[in-house]
C-alpha cells in the first residue's frame, strides 16, 4: 500500500469509527488534496465532514482549535509546512497552550496534517523542513512517519490523542510502497523503531531521511560496517531511551536530518546522548544535516542543500573510522 493510501485509510477508518472526526483544508474535497490523500472522502462522508476552505490559514487552523475544544476531532490539512507559519499564533499561542492555561480543563484534540521537504524543485517557500520549530514548543506533539505502516498507525493514534499533534509528512514519501497490516492497529506516539539492527554504529533518522539512512546502511554493510538504523517516528515526545540503549551498545552515534543543522532536532539528540550516554560514547557524535541555506530552485543545488545517501555513507564511515576512545 502506498504511503498516501495508508494515510487515507487511517482517515477513513477514524471517520467511520468516530463521528467527531472531520477533515478540513484547501482543495481536499472534490480535488482530493494536492497529494491525493483525502481522495474519495467527500463522496463517502459528505461536505459536513470534508470541508474545502479558502486561503485563510490562520482562520481555519483556529477553526480547528475551536472545534477541538468543544469536542470534535478535526484533522486540518495544511498544504505545506511552510504555510503553517501563517498560523503560527494559532498553533503555538492557542492550540499548544489552551490545556495548560485553562488549568487542565480544556483539551485540544486537533491534528494538523502537513508536509515538508525537498526534491521537487519547489524552491525556498515550498521545501522547508521546519519540525524543529514545533518540537521546541511545550504542548505540541510532533509525528514524522517514514513508512505506510507507520503513517497509518500513527495518524490513527494522533487522531485519538487528546492533545494537538503536528503530523508532518514528506513530499518524497507519498508514492512509496510498503506492507500495511490488514487488521486494525495503532502505533503509539512516542515510540521509535529499530528499522535495522546493527552493532558498529547507531544511525538515527526520521521521516524521509530514514529511507536514505537504510540505503546508506545497505552500502556500508557491503563494506562490513554494521549499522543500526533507528527511526524516531515521533520526535516529540521522543523515545530517547531507544537511542540511548543502542548507543550504549554501539558506542557511536550519527544523526541524519534533512532540516538545517543549526538549531535542528539532531542537535537536541546529540546533546541528550552526550549528557546521558557520556561514558558509552567512543567517538564524537556526528550530525549530518541540511546546509545553512534557503532551498534553491535548481535541481543540482537543491540536492546539494540536503544530505544524500552518499553523504550519510561518508559520515558513518568517518565516525566508525575514528579512533575509538576507551
Amino acid at each position, binding site marked *: 500500500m502506498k504511503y498516501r493510501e495508508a494515510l487515507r485509510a487511517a482517515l477513513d477508518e477514524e471517520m467511520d469509527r468516530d463521528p467527531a472526526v472531520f477533515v478540513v483544508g484547501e482543495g481536499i474535497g472534490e480535488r482530493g488534496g494536492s497529494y491525493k490523500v483525502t481522495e474519495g472522502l467527500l463522496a463517502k462522508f459528505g461536505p459536513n465532514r470534508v470541508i474545502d476552505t479558502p486561503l485563510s490559514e*490562520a482562520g481555519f487552523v483556529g477553526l480547528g*482549535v*475551536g472545534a477541538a475544544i468543544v469536542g470534535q476531532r478535526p484533522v486540518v490539512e495544511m498544504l505545506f509546512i511552510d504555510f503553517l507559519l501563517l498560523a503560527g499564533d494559532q498553533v503555538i499561542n*492557542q492550540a499548544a497552550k489552551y490545556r495548560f492555561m485553562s488549568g487542565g480543563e*480544556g483539551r485540544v484534540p486537533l491534528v494538523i496534517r502537513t508536509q515538508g521537504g525537498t526534491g521537487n524543485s519547489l524552491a525556498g517557500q515550498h521545501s522547508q523542513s521546519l519540525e524543529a520549530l514545533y518540537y521546541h514548543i511545550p504542548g505540541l506533539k510532533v509525528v514524522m512517519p517514514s513508512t505506510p505502516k507507520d503513517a497509518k498507525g500513527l495518524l490513527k493514534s494522533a487522531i485519538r490523542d487528546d492533545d494537538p499533534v503536528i503530523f508532518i509528512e514528506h513530499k518524497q514519501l507519498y508514492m512509496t510502497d510498503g506492507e500495511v497490516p490488514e487488521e486494525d492497529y495503532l502505533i503509539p506516539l512516542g515510540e521509535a523503531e529499530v528499522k535495522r539492527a546493527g552493532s558498529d554504529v547507531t544511525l538515527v533518522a526520521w521521516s524521509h531521511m530514514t529511507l536514505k539512512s537504510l540505503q546508506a546502511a545497505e552500502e556500508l554493510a557491503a563494506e562490513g560496517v554494521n549499522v543500526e538504523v533507528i527511526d524516531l517516528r515521533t520526535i516529540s515526545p521522543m523515545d530517547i531511551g531507544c537511542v540511548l540503549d543502542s548507543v550504549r551498545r554501539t558506542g557511536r552515534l550519527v544523526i541524519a536530518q534533512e532540516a538545517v543543522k543549526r538549531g535542528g532536532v539532531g542537535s537536541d539528540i546529540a546533546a541528550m546522548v552526550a549528557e546521558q550516554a557520556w561514558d558509552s560514547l567512543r567517538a564524537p557524535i556526528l550530525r549530518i544535516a541540511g546546509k545553512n541555506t534557503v532551498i534553491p530552485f535548481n535541481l543540482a543545488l537543491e540536492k546539494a542543500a540536503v544530505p544524500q545517501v552518499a553523504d550519510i555513507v561518508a559520515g558513518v564511515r568517518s565516525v566508525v573510522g575514528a579512533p575509538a576512545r576507551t
Partner: protein
Amino acid sequence: MTSVTPETVLAMYETALTIRRFEQRAIEQYRVGNIRGYLHPYLGEEGIATGSIAALEPSDYIVSTHRGHGHAIAKGHEPRRMMAELFGKETGYCHGRGGSMHVASRSVRNLGANGIVAGGLGIADGAALSIKQRGGSEVVVAFCSDGSSANGMWHESLNLAAIWDLPVIFVLENNQYAVSTPIRDSARIEHLSDRAAGYGMPGVTVDGNDAVLVYETMQEPLRRARAGEGPSLIECMTFRHGGHHVNDPGTYLPADQLAYWKGHDPLIVLRDRLAASGVGEAAIAEVDERVERVMDEAVEFATASPNPSLEEFLAEVAS
C-alpha cells in the same frame, strides 16, 4: 424588538453592577499587590457583555478577549473563583495558571479570554462549525474589539463564518481606542460595522452603553444564527473609564470624550431604564447590597485560598 420585562432589566442591572464592582475590587487588590501582571478593566463597557449575554441561553458559547472579566461574569462565572484566578490561586478557574487574560470554563461555556487580540475568533468559528455539524441550535458570541478589526484574523474569521453560515454573532466592542491609538487612525471608515457588507453578513452599530438596546439588538442575529442563516456583526460603541490596563493612566483619552461617556455610564443608563420600567428603589437597594456581599466574599475567598502546589506543578512538567 422584544419587550424587555422589568425583571430582565433588574437582572441586567445586577450583572452590570457585579462587573463594575468586581473590576473596582480587583483594581484595589492590584494596588495592594495581591494581583500581578496585566489587568484590563471593563469599567465603562459593562453594557455590552450584560446586554448581549442576557439574550443568550446557558447552552450558548462565548469567546472572550483580554478585557474579559465582564464577559465571564455575565456568562455566569463565580466572582470568587474569578478573583481567585486573578490572585493566582489554586481555587481560580485556571488553578492560577492562566490569570486574567486566560479565564475560561466549560461549566458556563466560556471558551476563554485571550492574550492575543483577535486570537479567539477562529476558535469561535470552530465551536460554531461543530454546532452546525451536530445539528445543534446553539450560538457562539465572539467578542472582539476595534483594534482587532485591523488584524487579519478578524477578516478571515468573519469571512469563514459568512461563507459557511456559521452561528456566530460577532460583538465588536468599539471603545474607540487600542491602548493609546484612536480607531480613526486605524480605520478610514465611519462605522466598523460597514465591513460586514464585505462578507455578505448583516452589520449594525448601536450604543453599547445601553444594555437593554444591546439585548434587543441581539434578537434578530440570534434568530438568524439559530435558523442556520449565518453570522452577524454588531458594533457596540463604548468608551473606557480609565487606562488600557491598571497601570496605564490613560492620560491620552480626550477629557471631553471621557466626560461624555462617563455621563453616559452603562449603570446610569440602566438605572434610568429601571425607573422607566417602574422598578422601585427597594429592589435596587437589595441588588446593591447583594453585590457588595458577593464582592466581599470573593475577595475573602481569593485571599484565603491556597496557592497552587509547586510540587504538583513540577511533577506535571517533569522532563
